């Protein structure tokens, strides 16, 4: 802000802003006083809005903005003065400024000059049109996503095949690193969740089956339920949420800082260095599924003991039979496919992050949501398929 004596005006010395309009001879004068700054702008704006533009009785009447009483002025103050002067001018009064210091004049002239520029209109859309637009974009988005994911899976597959031909391209250090981060460190939480869900299902199962006198069957129920569906699904969802977001954010921020472009120009294929080590993890995730299953199986047995009052040996025998009966290998493969699939989705998301922090955030969210969605979809398809082939 500009101060009248330029150097030494303390904040507290400045008086409240104000103005009055008077007629002297043939001149309408707006006498402004105090600090015309942005902090006071709201009050000044209201009062100036209420001020009527003086109507000159004859053409030789003029207007004057007397600002000799202004102690401080800034852009907002100058803009308010200029707006009033402009209104007077349009009303037929030739208006000039009086009592401006050099620095005040520079500012007011600048504001006057800058205020001439046309403002572009923002396109306003009706809510209905907006709704149609969003629907269109999201439908197109789904199609684009499908295409992108398919082509990304293709690229990954091509890169994997190339990896078999040229095994030295594989990055063992990176692979082990991700194995540790997304695999090993995910185990405790997956174990805990599976255990808790298993316990809840067991407890509810025992209570419900008691009506039929079939408490011991609760063990079988939980075994089948968790081995066939819930265990794998839970693990997939946990992994999708936990490491999925981390991968998208990591690769996304690398994309934002042009690290991915740097890699490409250095002749390093981001597929090999970033994507494959993580996709290879899909297999590791399948192992995590297994782990989840075993974890739940153990707890289930122990839990079952208290509730159903069965003999431990029986329970173990039952559970062992379940293991043999369950389509163990088929399911394991299914887990692997799923792991790869949602992983690929997330990685392709990461590579599509564009420029801004918001874009990163929205891609992370949509990566996790879509990964979970895909996991559940594929789970359903496999469940039907396996039932169809009599597994």
């Amino acid at each position, binding site marked *: 802000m500009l101060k009248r004596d*330029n150097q030494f005006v303390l904040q507290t010395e400045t008086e409240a802003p104000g103005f009055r309009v008077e007629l002297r001879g043939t001149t309408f004068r707006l006498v402004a006083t105090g600090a015309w700054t942005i902090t006071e702008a709201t009050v000044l704006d209201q009062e100036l809005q209420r001020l009527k533009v003086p109507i000159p009785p004859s053409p030789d009447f003029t207007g004057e903005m007397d600002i000799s009483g202004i102690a401080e002025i800034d*852009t907002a103050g100058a803009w308010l003065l200029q707006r009033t002067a402009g209104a007077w001018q349009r009303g037929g009064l030739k208006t000039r400024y009086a009592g401006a210091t050099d620095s005040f004049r520079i500012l007011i002239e600048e504001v006057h000059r800058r205020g001439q520029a046309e403002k572009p209109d923002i396109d306003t859309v009706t809510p209905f049109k907006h709704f149609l637009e969003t629907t269109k974009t999201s439908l197109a988005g789904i199609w684009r996503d499908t295409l992108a994911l398919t082509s990304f899976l293709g690229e990954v597959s091509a890169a994997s095949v190339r990896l078999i031909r040229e095994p030295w391209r594989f990055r063992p250090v990176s692979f082990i690193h991700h194995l540790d981060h997304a695999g090993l460190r995910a185990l405790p939480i997956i174990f805990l969740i599976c255990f808790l869900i298993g316990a809840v299902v067991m407890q509810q199962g025992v209570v419900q089956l008691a009506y039929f006198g079939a408490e011991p069957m609760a063990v079988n129920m939980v075994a089948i339920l968790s081995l066939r569906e819930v265990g794998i699904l839970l693990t997939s969802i946990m992994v999708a949420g936990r490491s999925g977001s981390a991968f998208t954010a990591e690769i996304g921020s690398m994309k934002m800082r042009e690290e991915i472009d740097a890699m490409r120009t250095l002749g390093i294929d981001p597929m090999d260095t970033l994507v494959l080590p993580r996709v290879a993890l899909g297999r590791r995730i399948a192992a995590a599924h297994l782990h989840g299953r075993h974890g739940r199986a153990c707890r289930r047995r122990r839990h079952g003991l208290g509730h159903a009052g069965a003999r431990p040996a029986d329970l173990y025998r039952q559970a062992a039979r379940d293991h043999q009966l369950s389509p163990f290998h088929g399911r394991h493969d299914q887990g692997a496919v799923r792991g790869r699939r949602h992983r690929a989705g997330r990685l392709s998301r990461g590579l599509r992050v564009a420029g801004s922090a918001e874009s990163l955030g929205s891609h992370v969210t949509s990566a996790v949501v879509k990964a979970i969605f895909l996991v559940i979809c594929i789970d359903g398809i496999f469940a039907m398929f396996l039932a169809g082939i009599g597994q």
Partner: protein
Amino acid sequence: MIVEDGREVVIRVRGLAKSFGSHQIWESLDLDVYRGEILAIVGGSGQGKSVLMRVITGLVQPDAGIVTLFGIEEHALTPEARLAIEQRWGILFQDGALFSSLTVLQNIQVPMREHLDLPQSMMDDLAFLKLSMVGLPPEAAHKFPSELSGGMRKRAGLARALALDPEIVFLDEPTAGLDPIGATEFDHLIRKLQQTLGLTVYMVTHDLDTIFTVCDRVAVLADKKIVRTGSPAELQSKPDHPWIEEYFCGERARAASPAEERRVAG
């Protein structure tokens, strides 16, 4: 208010020390910034030029020393007083640091919205005014930062820094990453805004052209303190320090000077 040689000292730094781990960047740093001047802070890499700006603006805590802002010691500030002081300065970060989820216009209005209660139409008008003052076309108003070029982002960042008509603006490497034409325009813009708005400008820079064209005073950071301050011409004619000599009398400096006739008319 601190007055020295008939000029108001808006920022006074005394005995500042800071270290990161085992690396000490300053031992005892003193600096005065006077009202209405354009001050450039120069120094080699790792001398803590940007950190000094961050200490003054309260983003980084120093290990020792006193920072006085507008005559008030920084550590004695109540949260309310700090808020009031924050309205009296504007900061332009190196890449503009615009909020990426807001348009340029909304970015400029953020400080107004946060600190004041202005009607929307007035905020729009003022934001367009600021936009025009920093030399951006009105069409840029509804664009997002990611749609702007580096130079435009800097200008938009400057417009946001100027939103509340501050008394001081801090500029962190204002011309870095701009082409020579863009950088020269930016230099002139700074000088013009400084005159129009009566600003005090504190800038961290490497750009010898900027220093010779617009700066009133230069403070040199070396040997863990401010070794010298003075006008660019003074430092060039009497370097008195190996780093200053290398900086102001080196090959690039000779290309950027002679200073006086190139100065923007002030």
